[in-house]
């Protein structure tokens, strides 16, 4: 089934065997409530790693039924992250979520060479899935948060992550637009040149399961009318499922515009580790956190 609205993920997950979410240092009400919502909805099993007394106190205050959740008692954030990662490596959990600890410490546990979750050569990257009210389908894009200036090799990896997320959402052959200033190949503009290279690699079958085109201006990627005015033809134009952004500034600005100026639902995960990792911030809406958990659960299959 192709997911066309984010809440369709819930329907799919309810039909499947539940995946085990491991929340690292889950000692704040935001994290506990998000996990609890997902558990109550019947889309995951929840494991909270953190100080047991604090977790139980919050559960009591917020009328959360502790018995539905598994609590693993650890008394500080660094150890909680290490324990959560260890549980994933021991197959006691299926995917990871960040609790109250800093992003930095969370990432360090994932990236740890001996005990972490990375395969050699892999790159961690942030993938967002948005459902803008003004677009006819979901948009999957990156990287808006982790890699500031991806080089060619990293862009190839990020492109593959975007495609993989699309594939897991049931989009068999997603259309990927590679964002650059314009559709003209400008050999001296790095984003433009690298887009041309990646697009040729896809033509040669070196990037699979997708239709890739670039360089393209953002207007051409998401607006069929713009492509028509310019007289351009291509399957991706105005109908992209995925967007690879030239760099973090471009991606992050798009992300924030989509959140703040366009009515959009959205969610995100970190790709590149052996399991999907949820990295929500406290500013995210309840709904968005739930979607992010659902997305990670979808990707954990």
């Amino acid at each position, binding site marked *: 089934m192709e997911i066309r609205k984010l809440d369709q993920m819930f329907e799919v997950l309810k039909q499947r065997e539940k995946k085990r979410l491991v929340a690292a240092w889950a000692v704040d009400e935001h994290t506990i409530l998000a996990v609890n919502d997902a558990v109550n909805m019947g889309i995951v099993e929840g494991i909270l790693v953190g100080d047991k007394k604090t977790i139980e106190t919050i559960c009591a205050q917020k009328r959360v039924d502790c018995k539905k959740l598994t609590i693993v008692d650890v008394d500080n954030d660094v150890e909680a992250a290490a324990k959560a990662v260890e549980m994933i490596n021991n197959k006691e959990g299926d995917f990871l979520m960040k609790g109250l600890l800093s992003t930095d410490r969370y990432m360090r546990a994932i990236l740890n060479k001996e005990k972490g979750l990375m395969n050699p050569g892999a790159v961690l990257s942030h993938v967002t899935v948005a459902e803008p009210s003004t677009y006819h389908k979901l948009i999957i894009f990156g990287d808006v948060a982790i890699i500031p200036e991806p080089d060619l090799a990293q862009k190839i990896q990020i492109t593959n992550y975007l495609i993989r997320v699309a594939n897991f959402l049931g989009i068999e052959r997603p259309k990927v637009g590679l964002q650059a200033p314009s559709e*003209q*190949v400008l*050999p001296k503009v790095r984003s433009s*040149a690298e887009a*041309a*290279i990646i697009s*040729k690699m896809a033509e*040669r079958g*070196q990037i699979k399961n997708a239709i890739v085109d670039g*360089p393209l201006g953002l207007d051409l990627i998401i607006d069929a009318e713009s492509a028509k005015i310019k007289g351009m033809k291509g399957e991706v134009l105005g109908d992209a499922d995925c967007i690879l952004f030239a760099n973090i500034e471009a991606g992050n600005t798009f992300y924030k515009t989509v959140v703040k100026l366009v009515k959009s639902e959205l969610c995100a995960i970190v790709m590149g580790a052996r399991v999907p990792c949820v990295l929500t911030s406290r500013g995210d809406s309840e709904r968005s956190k739930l979607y992010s958990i659902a997305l990670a659960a979808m990707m954990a299959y």
Partner: protein
Amino acid sequence: MKRLIEIVEKAKSLGRRTRIAVALAEDANTIGAICRATKEGFIHPVLIGDKHRIECLLEAQGLPLSETEIIDIKEPAQATKEAVRMVRDGEADVLMKGLVGTDQFLREVLNKERGLLPPKAVMSYACALELPKYHKLLIISDTAVLPTPDFSQKLAMVNYSVKMAHTLGIEKPKVALISATEKVSPGMPNTLDYALLCKMADRGQIKGCTIDGPLDVFLACDKEAVATKGVPTPIDGDADILIFPNLETANAFYKGLMLFGGGELAGLIQGTTKPVVVMSRSESENSKYYCIALSCLMAEET
């Protein structure tokens, strides 16, 4: 076109004599080719060099002196300067190298004030090969001038070769960008340049041709290899033009072919305002004759 002789036929059909200025026209090969083209009526030679020596060579070929123009300058550098000047001032249509050294000759062609290369233009080399085992002429570049072409030089090579193909009557030549494999790989930087060139053609930034690369020579020139390998490419084993990643590869390719497979070639300097014929002294009279014919066609275009 399958054979270089067809270029000669085309040159004859132009119905005019192209004026060719030959710098230091004192070797038998060059004079032999010039005499043949003159007798066949498609060139008017201006022979610059030692008058006495030139006249002896012409006599040996049985060409009446009245059909040529001889300018008596004995010193090679001065003879070259005068030949370049004549082409630059429109007194001749084509420049050809005789017995003068290539370095000395090209120095005059490249001279900023009085040479034949427009400012910022890339000088390159393209030649058309007649190969017994290929079904048509094959244009290749660059076998002689650019050792390791960068991106903009590769772009220039493509455009020059396409122009040559158009002159030969190939409307939409198929350009193959040659590498060892069809894969785009950061470890082989030439393949990255090729990806850019392909995408530029997609976007209409390179016109008048079908272009694909990286491709190996098999995928470029052998339909069976394309079928076996299953690599979809619009070139489809039917290339008109091969662009090589560097001079060593291109040079070894054509010399290997000439030596082991046989064949003929006709090449020209590219990028100059008027055609420039530079053949090494060891090249056969036949090759020089074809070059002259090709230069006549190209002179029509410039």
